């Protein structure tokens, strides 16, 4: 035991700046790890509720321990937080109140109880506001030891129990079916969470604990699809925001640590929100724009096919004006789309750029699209009992997505049909450009 204490002692930095940095790192680790579960459970504001609900516990600790025994105060706070969680659960089970209302009720009520109690014993509880609105600069060796122990505990627990905890976050019923001791796991999780909240309170304060729990985890959630990586990333982002906060508030005057840490975490989130490779807003809108462009081009190809078909495939040239009038678009617009198609060498403009013709690959793609569309229409009317005037919209969407294997399956199921529900021919896969005559 004394050995452990000695090791602990040697880990604590001597300077107050060093202490603040260490507190920031520990905070990032503890909150980052637990935050992942909280975000995945869609209970992000549980941390907020707990951080307010601990107030009666803190007051009790201060009132009944005149020598300000930190461990006792923290223990009381954890008990109060767990009570809060319990009351939320009971309210959810036994009433029609929705989870958010239960959380808000417990948050407000416990906090008010704490305030009433505190205003009764004002002289004993002078430090309570300091406790709740924490200041990382005032963290001393004892606090740090407490944080270190609890963060190590949290990390060990989370790393060893991450599978069952993950299952419980996504599907408690499945966890029960697997034979997990669900009740114990829930209790363990909320105990750890309350622990993390309570030890973080002194550093960042009651409101901003939620930020340290939610924001890094949400950023990590946008960066990866694997849970283990999310845990790691969330931890790293938590440490990063903690360190930025600690650095800014020690190097600049009048910069409160907790809010600066929160702002750093929010800044990281904004960056991730915009630039995350798959789930970021920029990547998403780029993907959307690309898909829109693809669909516009493919629809133009299809229109060219339709025009050629109406004229009985008697010639190969189609004027841009005709495409524009058929697609009800401005001519310039069609021109732009067609230039894109030419870059993909699907079409070829004539000399004066007023008409165009399909290349071989363009012809094949146009034919594929028309066939996809008509096969799908036929499938919907025959197999899904759609009315034949209801199928166009659906086919218009799916035609861009059907792959070759799907098409083969459809053709087989529909017994290699020749006509679509509207009586128009479904082009065959290997048909070349019909010369002169209408293909049937």
């Amino acid at each position: 035991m004394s050995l452990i204490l000695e090791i602990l002692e040697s880990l604590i930095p001597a300077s107050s700046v060093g202490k603040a940095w260490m507190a920031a790192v520990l905070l990032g680790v503890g909150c980052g790890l637990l935050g992942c579960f909280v975000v995945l459970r869609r209970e992000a504001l549980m941390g907020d509720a707990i951080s307010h609900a601990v107030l009666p516990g803190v007051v009790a600790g201060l009132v009944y321990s005149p020598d300000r025994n930190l461990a006792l105060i923290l223990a009381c706070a954890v008990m109060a937080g767990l009570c809060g969680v319990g009351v939320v659960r009971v309210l959810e089970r036994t009433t029609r109140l929705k989870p958010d209302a239960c959380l808000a009720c417990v948050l407000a009520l416990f906090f008010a109880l704490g305030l009433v109690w505190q205003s009764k014993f004002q002289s004993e509880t002078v430090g309570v506001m300091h406790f709740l609105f924490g200041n990382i600069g005032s963290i001393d060796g004892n606090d740090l030891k407490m944080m270190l122990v609890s963060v190590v505990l949290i990390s060990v627990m989370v790393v060893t129990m991450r599978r069952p905890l993950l299952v419980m976050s996504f599907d408690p019923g499945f966890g029960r079916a697997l034979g997990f001791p669900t009740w114990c796991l829930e209790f363990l999780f909320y105990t750890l969470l309350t622990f993390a909240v309570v030890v973080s309170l002194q550093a960042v304060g009651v409101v901003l604990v939620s930020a340290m729990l939610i924001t890094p985890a949400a950023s990590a959630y946008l960066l990866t699809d694997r849970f283990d990586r999310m845990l790691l990333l969330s931890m790293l982002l938590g440490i990063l925001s903690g360190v930025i906060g600690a650095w800014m508030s020690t190097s600049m005057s009048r910069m409160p640590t907790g809010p600066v840490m929160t702002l750093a975490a929010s800044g990281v989130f904004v960056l991730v929100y915009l630039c995350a490779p798959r789930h970021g807003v920029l990547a998403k809108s780029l993907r959307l724009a690309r898909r829109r462009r693809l669909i516009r081009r493919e629809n133009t190809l299809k229109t060219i096919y339709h025009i050629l078909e109406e004229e009985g495939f008697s010639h190969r040239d189609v004027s841009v004006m005709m495409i524009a009038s058929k697609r009800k678009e401005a001519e310039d617009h069609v021109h732009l789309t067609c230039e894109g198609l030419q870059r993909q060498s699907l079409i070829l403009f004539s000399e004066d750029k007023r008409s165009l013709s399909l290349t071989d690959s363009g012809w094949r793609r146009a034919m594929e699209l028309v066939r996809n569309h008509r096969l799908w229409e036929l499938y919907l009317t025959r197999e899904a009992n759609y009315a034949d005037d209801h199928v166009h919209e659906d086919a218009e969407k799916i035609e861009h997505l059907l792959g070759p294997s799907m098409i083969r399956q459809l053709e087989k199921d529909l017994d290699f049909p020749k006509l679509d529900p509207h009586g128009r021919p479904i082009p065959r896969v290997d048909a070349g450009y019909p010369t002169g005559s209408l293909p049937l």
Partner: protein
Amino acid sequence: MSVYLNQPWEVFGIGALWLVLMAFFVALPCSQLGSFLMLRRMSLTGDAISHSVFPGVVLAFLLTGDLASPWLIIGAGLAGLLATVLIELVHKWTRVKQDAATGISFTALFALGVVMMETMLGQHVDLDLDCVLHGRLGLLLEEDTVTCFGLAWPGLVVVMAAVAVAAQLLMAFFFRVLLLSSFDAGLAASLGYRPALVHYGLMLTTSMVVVAAFQSVGAILVIALLVLPGATAYLCTHRIRIMMVLAAIHALLSAIGGLYLHVWLNTNMSASVVVSGGILLVLAWLLGPVDGVIWKWMAEEPDQSEQGLDQATNSQPRD
């Protein structure tokens, strides 16, 4: 007994009336708005808003330099709207869910407010922690008074009464739209209403009421006033109009109960109002005519469930 009942009068005189009225005028608009927030499953958005109005208030204070200026309320309203927009931006565009989006937005705005206050205003300002936490309901009696109907009304009571009446009129005017868009936004949109507009309007009104209430009960206890009346009323009835009336009654009862707790136990008045509201919630939870736990327990006696089983087996078709 009557000694206890008369105690507030002996301590405060006419001041007891002002304290109750003030608490009631703060709680009334909160209760009505909070009921709708609860129906829309946005109780925690109330929590978020009460924190995110902070940068708006600080900014307005920076520009006007006056804590009593109405610009503070407008700034708060705008900051509340900003929080709503941020929440929407996050959860509509990414897979982060609404609860996490709420947490991210309000903590960021609150932190921004604190940093702005610390760096730009310095320490000498009145927006202190104690006020944010406890409110200053108890200090009401030391404020200036306004003479009206032959009585000297404390100024704050008059201001808060005006806010309450305005919010109440607004709610009454938009009641049907609010109701419709809260339960079925799709139907409201198809009938030509604008649910999104209603949403933002509700958020704007909530932020303004929250800030008006801020000074008297503090930021965190405002959440209680927003959620407790609605939740209590919700446990007592299935009808929305009755629910709104019950929420208003809850506001009144918790104001009165708060005064008594304040006097009997010598505690903070604002927190006492919330605690007495909480006691009403617990009562509704145990004894509520619709959702009371005790009635449910009594209905779930073991012999009845066996009877139910017998009936189920008896009702099978016999041949």
